[in-house]
């Protein structure tokens, strides 16, 4: 077996920061090689270097024994390298076959396309590697997992021998993940070389042959997956021992803080996004909602937070600590003691051009404590930000002057979590994807703060696409499917489920698809 990709002493600088430092790596032909690391460790940069999107500052790269220097990804494709990006690059209004040949038409304007021919090749490829893709289906009608398969087909259609997948499971359900892994294994058997970039350690151990850990731009170790453990990988990534699962002491629920009764939401096109949705959360418990994205979670969140939906019809009611919040706006809901960590942090939770301090205040700027006539009391505000920054370990140079945009994703999220968890008189905490795009070290801290808020008596709603996060934190888990809660796992079921995690995840998976 010889290496399909061999990197020697690769360094890539952006300005003065070295994204990759003296990286040497051999990826054997016909294997699945995973690269793990925290956000900002340089994984994506390395992938983009191999795919020709960046050029290394120094070092050499060999593909199948030949030294190469790619000027663009076009060269990399010609050398048999293909990449499946984290965000799919498909045109929804075209069919699968049309998407696959996009960019390869090699036709003069107005001459007919060889669609039938390429359709046959796609069928042949999917038969060969044992997965189903209908070349005539419209991409807009496909599920996320199917879209990903189209991306893989696109790469195979271009005769790639080396496939790079960037965070391939980020958007998949447990079942879809299993399907993807089966596809990857069959590709591997056929002699393809696969490089996976990820931060999910369980999945690495489940599918990869070899794993390399990156930290601060360097490869800190390469191990065969058979002889390594999750804990060892995590320690190599972060540089210290970390708890992969926070302690979750027995909850002691109090009175009902949130009750959602027969909630329905019909969009303007007549489709129900939420239907007969019922659940309630008591003080001191964490209610997790598991579900595939697009099953009504966003609609539920915006109704809970009173964010104006310009269209559609709402029925049913939402009670927060005995108050009906129908028709209330976010400011009024927040004043009841409700905090929200929204799904899309950059779009909804922060003003990226504002300083860290100003963001610590954002949404809480109406609290009179911070006021000084019609302006702010700068000293109070700055002290408050400093205290939050220390408690939540927000890493930045200058809280008061540094724009939030310059912080890493994990630190940005810590700012949001700090602000929302420290709301005075917190009764209900709504968390949507609280650790998305956050590195392992920060995840641990955020998880501990969430448990801390629960123990102080807040009712917590946790919406997450990470099943292990839900299982680790929740007191109960509701499975949302097509706008209703299909099944609620009780406290007892959860504590049993934590013992046999994989089968429990599968069981949850069955209730959300």
């Amino acid at each position, binding site marked *: 077996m010889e290496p399909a990709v061999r990197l020697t002493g690769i360094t890539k600088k952006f300005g003065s920061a070295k994204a990759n430092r003296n990286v040497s790596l051999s990826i054997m032909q016909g294997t699945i090689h995973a690269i793990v690391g925290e956000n900002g460790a340089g994984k994506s940069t390395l992938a983009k270097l191999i795919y020709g999107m960046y050029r290394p500052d120094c070092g050499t790269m060999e593909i199948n024994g030949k030294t190469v220097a790619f000027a663009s990804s076009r060269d990399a494709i010609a050398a048999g390298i293909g990449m499946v990006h984290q965000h799919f690059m498909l045109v929804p209004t075209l069919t699968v076959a049309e998407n696959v040949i996009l960019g390869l038409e090699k036709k003069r304007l107005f001459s007919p396309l060889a669609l039938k021919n390429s359709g046959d090749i796609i069928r042949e490829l999917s038969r060969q590697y044992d997965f189903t893709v209908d070349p005539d289906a419209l991409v807009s009608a496909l599920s996320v997992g199917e879209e990903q398969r189209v991306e893989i087909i696109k790469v195979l259609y271009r005769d790639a021998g080396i496939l790079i997948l960037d965070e391939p499971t980020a958007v998949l359900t447990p079942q879809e993940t299993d399907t993807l892994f089966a596809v990857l294994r069959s590709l591997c058997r056929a002699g393809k070389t696969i490089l996976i970039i990820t931060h999910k350690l369980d999945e690495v151990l489940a599918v990869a042959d070899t794993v390399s850990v990156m930290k601060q731009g360097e490869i800190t170790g390469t191990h065969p997956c058979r002889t390594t453990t999750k804990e060892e990988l995590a320690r190599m990534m972060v540089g210290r021992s970390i708890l992969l699962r926070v302690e979750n002491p027995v909850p002691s629920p109090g009175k009902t803080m949130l009750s959602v009764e027969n909630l329905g939401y019909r969009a303007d096109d007549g489709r129900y996004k939420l239907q007969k949705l019922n659940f309630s959360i008591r003080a001191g418990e964490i209610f997790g909602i598991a579900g595939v994205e697009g099953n009504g979670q966003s609609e539920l969140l915006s109704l809970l937070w009173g964010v104006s939906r310009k269209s559609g019809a709402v029925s049913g009611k939402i009670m927060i600590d005995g108050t009906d919040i129908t028709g209330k*706006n976010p400011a*009024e809901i927040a004043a009841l003691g409700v905090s*929200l960590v929204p799904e899309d942090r950059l*779009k*909804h939770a*922060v003003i990226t051009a504002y*300083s860290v301090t*100003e963001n610590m205040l954002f*949404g809480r*700027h109406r609290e009179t404590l911070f006021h000084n006539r019609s302006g702010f009391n700068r000293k109070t505000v700055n002290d408050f930000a400093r205290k939050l920054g220390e408690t939540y370990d927000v890493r930045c140079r200058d809280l008061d002057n540094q724009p939030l945009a310059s912080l890493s994703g994990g630190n940005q999220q810590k700012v949001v979590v700090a602000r929302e968890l420290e709301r005075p008189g917190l009764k209900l905490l709504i968390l949507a994807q609280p650790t998305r795009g956050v590195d392992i070290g920060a995840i641990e801290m955020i998880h501990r703060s969430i448990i801390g808020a629960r123990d102080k008596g807040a009712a917590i709603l946790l919406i997450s696409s990470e099943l292990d996060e839900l299982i680790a934190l929740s007191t109960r888990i509701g499975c949302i499917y097509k706008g209703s809660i299909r099944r609620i796992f009780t406290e007892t079921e959860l504590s049993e489920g934590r013992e046999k995690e994989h089968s429990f995840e599968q069981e949850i998976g069955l209730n959300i698809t």
Partner: protein
Amino acid sequence: MTFRSFRFFIPVLAVTAAGLCSVVIIALTGRDPFMIYEKLFRATLLSGYGSGQVLFKTTTLIFTGLAVALPFRAKLFNIGGEGQLQLGALAAAITGTLLPLSFPPAAAVPITAIAAMAAGGIWGGASGILKVKFGVNEVISTIMLNFIAQAATGYLLTCRFAVPSTEHTPEIGNSSMLPGLDDLFGIFTGSPANITILLALASALYAAWYLFRSRAGYELRAVGLQPEAADYAGIRSGRHVITVMSIAGALAGVAALNLVSGYKHYYESGLTGGFGFSGIAVALLAGAHPLWIVPAALFFGLIEYGGLAVGAYVPRDIFMIIQALTILIVIVLNAQKR
């Protein structure tokens, strides 16, 4: 909570580049550019009267510049400064003539100012309401409201308030007049510069405080930067849109004090002479920063009056080209930065 949201480099570069272009253009007309510039500076900065003229124009431009800059922070483009100013000026002139002569200046001047601000503010606020309630783009509505203001002031002037067989309203009462800097301090002799400049500087300071120090400004800028995030933070963006458009209209309107109470003492057609539109250029050059509005207004005031002063040698249009070039270069450089 910082004042540092301004890049010094771009406006300076733009002004320099536009200046160099003008040298070429003047040379193309067959004149010696250095002679023209020497005359220009002699007629403006080196003469008391000329400096006063520049200051007079600067005063109006500070107000109309602020009227564009403030809404700009909420991602609103107020093209309506001209209409707001016209209505303000007419309102000030009418109020000044209607007030009994026995009124003390301490009462008459504020009343005139309030009338001007109310007229401009309602006009600005109207496009705010159109935007919030009906979703009308403020660029469209302010342009349309400009036409209406133009026509309405024209009608009111000729058919209602003009002194018969003239094109202007009667002169305002003595008590509503503002003293010139000439009368007060004996400087800028014979020029229309008057104490409204102090109000203009105060307005710029107040606008800076409002934007960068007040809670309303904190919310307003959030609405401009990320409207959805502002929504999630419970900020009533509609209220801010209407408020800031009203404030903008009031600022443009109150420039009437400079034109009517401080200088002409009556309203005539053409009195506002495009100051509302030049305000857009001022705001863009200043990067919509209230304090930088002052030097930007001074620059445009200099070019506008300087262009008039050397009009005997080169067409004034050349200086309009410089103004336009400056703004284009600012916009291009800002786009490059991203």
